[in-house]
């Protein structure tokens, strides 16, 4: 018993199957059409030839038997008639002749003693008269042949197939040699016609079956061809999506199996190559990371000791020999530079390795910027246009790195005053962005340099003196903006000077996997 939903499910499955079949419509259809044409050609030609041969064989056999009988009868019966038989004699003989096993009608034509043409027929088919015999046949029968070495008889037996009404007939005629009557016979070929018709029907049905069979075969062939192709398509797509471990199951030894094997080899080679490259990439990254870690240890010792030297310099007690004072100063300043370089290198390797994390807090942006400027003694050189009270959830240390690099860069290349302005893109929207613009009053950035300002170790021109910057500052600033889900863009202001625009989301917490806020369960936000 089929429940309605079973039926529904079956229907849906069928529709799915059809839809999935449609994906390869063209190839499947082409295969079916080709198979069908081949089957049709073969079946039609085979049936046609078979039908034609059969028809000839059947008709000839029947005809030969009938004609032999008729000839026999003519010799036996009509040959014994007197030269001028009466109507009755003719009628009688025709009746006797027709009684033979072949069941044909007989018509005898002779001249009686008075020179009248008399006609006797077998009576079975009383419609058989001279009118039924074609004129051409009568002429041929009546014509006396000249006797030669190759032709021993003056009269021959002639036959013809005619259609009377819808029925096929065999009509034949001859003349008794030596002035006897002319005899005609009429034999219905209907039984043979019926046999041949049923043969034609059978052949037609066989052709139809062959067509259906070929269509099914084409479907099966298409499926066996298309299934591996389909699988190959899926595998290729997966490979394209970066799943390099994708492999095909190879079965058989045909061309498709070859293709699958080639695919597997290619995927394997690709995987090896990619693994090789990423391993090399990884190795070089790890080298930089390890290197900067290793640099840190001696640097920590040097830094600690350098401070002692620095204090001696500041002490102004003359404890340091004036001869070596420049050397000490150099060591102190270069140690500081080395420190910041290693610090930046570490920062870069953390970004490259993807281990950089956000430590989020709610901060007042204006306060943060003021503190950043203040800590670096830039208050005189920077104009700040920011309202207090713009709270954002971000990583304050990273914001400081961005601001210090942007403002420091502006001061270095653009000259003071540097103008820093803070806006909120759309104050009412929940996902509003924070926009911080840092604008200098320098000559701006050349157009050809503009796309490269965030590149690592990019120097605008070789002639420019090496500044104390590590060449990583803007790159690190950009990475810090990215890790917040923000962006920094560089442009030239129409009023002159370069403008760096930092865009940060006001709440970056969506980017971190909800940092375990101590006791978030007890979040009663009442009364701040």
């Amino acid at each position, binding site marked *: 018993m089929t429940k309605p939903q079973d039926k529904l499910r079956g229907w849906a499955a069928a529709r799915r199957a059809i839809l999935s079949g449609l994906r390869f419509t063209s190839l499947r259809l082409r295969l079916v059409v080709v198979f069908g044409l081949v089957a049709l050609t073969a079946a039609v030609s085979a049936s046609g030839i078979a039908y034609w041969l059969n028809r000839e064989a059947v008709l000839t056999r029947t005809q030969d038997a009938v004609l032999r009988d008729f000839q026999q009868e003519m010799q036996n019966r009509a040959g014994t008639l007197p030269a001028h038989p009466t109507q009755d004699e003719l009628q009688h003989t025709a009746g006797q002749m027709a009684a033979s096993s072949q069941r044909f009608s007989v018509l005898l034509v002779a001249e009686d003693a008075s020179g009248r043409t008399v006609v006797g027929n077998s009576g079975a088919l009383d419609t058989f008269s001279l009118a039924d015999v074609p004129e051409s046949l009568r002429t041929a029968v009546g014509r006396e042949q000249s006797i030669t070495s190759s032709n021993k008889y003056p009269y021959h037996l002639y036959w013809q197939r005619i259609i009377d009404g819808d029925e096929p007939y065999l009509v034949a005629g001859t003349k008794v040699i030596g002035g006897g009557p002319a005899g005609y016979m009429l034999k219905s070929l209907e039984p043979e016609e019926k046999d041949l018709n049923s043969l034609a029907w059978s052949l037609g049905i066989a052709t139809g079956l062959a067509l259906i069979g070929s269509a099914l075969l084409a479907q099966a062939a298409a499926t066996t061809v298309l299934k591996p192709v389909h699988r190959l398509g899926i595998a290729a797509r997966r490979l394209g999506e970066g799943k390099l471990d994708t492999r095909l199951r190879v079965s058989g030894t045909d061309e498709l199996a070859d293709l699958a094997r080639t695919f597997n080899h290619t995927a394997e080679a690709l995987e090896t190559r990619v693994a090789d490259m990423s391993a090399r990439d990884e190795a070089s990254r790890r080298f930089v990371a390890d290197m900067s870690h290793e640099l840190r240890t001696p*640097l*920590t010792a040097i830094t600690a000791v350098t*401070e002692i030297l620095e204090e001696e310099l500041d002490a102004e007690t003359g404890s340091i020999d004036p001869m070596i004072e420049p050397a000490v100063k150099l060591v102190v300043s270069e140690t500081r530079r080395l420190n910041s370089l290693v610090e930046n290198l570490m920062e870069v390797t953390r970004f490259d390795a993807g281990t950089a994390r956000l430590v989020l807090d*709610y901060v007042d942006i204006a306060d943060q910027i003021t503190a950043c400027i203040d*800590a670096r003694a830039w208050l005189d050189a920077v104009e700040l246009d920011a309202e207090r009270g713009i709270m954002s959830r971000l990583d304050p*240390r990273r914001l400081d790195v961005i601001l210090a690099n942007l403002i420091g860069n502006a001061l270095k290349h653009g000259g003071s005053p540097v103008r820093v302005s803070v806006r909120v893109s759309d104050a009412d929207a929940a996902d509003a962005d924070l926009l911080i613009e840092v604008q200098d009053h320098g000559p701006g950035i050349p157009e050809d340099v503009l796309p490269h300002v965030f590149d690592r170790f990019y120097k605008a021109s070789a002639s420019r003196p090496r500044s104390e910057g590590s060449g990583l500052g803007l790159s690190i600033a950009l990475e810090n903006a990215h890790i917040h889900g923000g962006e920094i863009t560089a442009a030239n202001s129409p009023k002159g000077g370069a403008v760096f625009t930092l865009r940060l989301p006001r709440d970056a917490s969506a980017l971190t996997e909800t940092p375990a806020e101590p006791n978030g369960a007890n979040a009663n936000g009442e009364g701040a």
Partner: protein
Amino acid sequence: MGQNASVPSLLLIEDDDAIRTALELSLTRQGHRVATAATGEDGLKLLREQRPDLIVLDVMLPGIDGFEVCRRIRRTDQLPIILLTARSDDIDVVVGLESGADDYVVKPVQGRVLDARIRAVLRRGERESNDSASFGSLVIDRSAMTVTKNGEDLQLTPTELRLLLELSRRPGQALSRQQLLRLVWEHDYLGDSRLVDACVQRLRAKVEDVPSSPTLIRTVRGVGYRLDSPQ
């Protein structure tokens, strides 16, 4: 704590000879008495013998690492610990703070910064006023610098105590993490807010009845923390 209140004694546990020597030089110059140890095991032995006022502890140590040393110290002692992390990788900092450190400094450390941190940590234990306050069963005695819960003394590190004092000075008022970093840790505007979170968690474990659902130290979402009297 220390034998001489005016000269704080420090224990520096650091495996790298150069760093140990340099930091010892630098800290001694800043006016500290410095004892040094090259491994965690030696450090723990020295700790028992010398009773320093503060420990400066490297994270990457041969044998038992800095985190483990920190945990072992915290089992018996509440003296301040400052971690020296060679990496500022976040996992290190978080693990260090969870194992009970009061503050951390990232290498390459500047002697002056380390000195400032040391002095800030040591100041947390100094008493300021002579009153006391009670929050439910919790009694904070500011003159004796002790905290009791249901009459029992609580063992708080100086940092935990200072955090509780700063919160108790403004009961019912939410303090932001940045404010607490300034008040308790004396950090500038770039203080690591995780210091506050880690310390709050340790403090809750000691003062709350059920640390996972605190009734005294409440989180104020989007602001920070506040101390309430339980209703």
